[in-house]
């Protein structure tokens, strides 16, 4: 498999996380809709794996202890989302 670029990886995360947001809001109102819940759990699993892959290559996506950092502290590295638009 060809390695995805940083932007491609970010885009794939955006697609999965958007689906997770949508299913989350739907499930808030329909907690007993099992098919939606199965889709949510599958997407969460894929999203988690993809975020781990991204973070191991490019540093943490989330602050406050949600991802470890290599030395030196990577959280403050450029670029910020508004700069790349990703």
């Amino acid at each position, binding site marked *: 498999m060809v390695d995805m670029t940083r932007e491609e990886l970010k885009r794939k995360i*955006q*697609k*999965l996380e*958007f*689906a997770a947001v*949508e*299913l989350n809001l*739907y499930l808030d109102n*329909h907690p007993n*809709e099992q*098919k*939606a819940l199965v*889709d949510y759990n599958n997407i969460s699993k894929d999203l988690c794996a993809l975020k781990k892959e991204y973070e191991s290559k490019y540093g943490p996506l989330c602050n406050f202890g949600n991802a470890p950092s290599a030395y030196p502290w990577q959280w403050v590295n450029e670029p910020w989302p508004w700069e790349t638009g990703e």
Partner: protein
Amino acid sequence: MYPYYRSTPDKSKVINLMLARAYVPDQPYIGILPLDEALKKGVLFPNLDIPYAIKSKE
């Protein structure tokens, strides 16, 4: 322009509801759109995918 309004509801189906209340029909789960398409459109669900009326700005 009002691209949101596409059709009027079938009034015969809206019976036995209490007056002076607002109702939005419950959205059934009919599966999801391909994730590429969903992000681009801003909606994951095929039954909530209301097209934008101005074709050139779709």
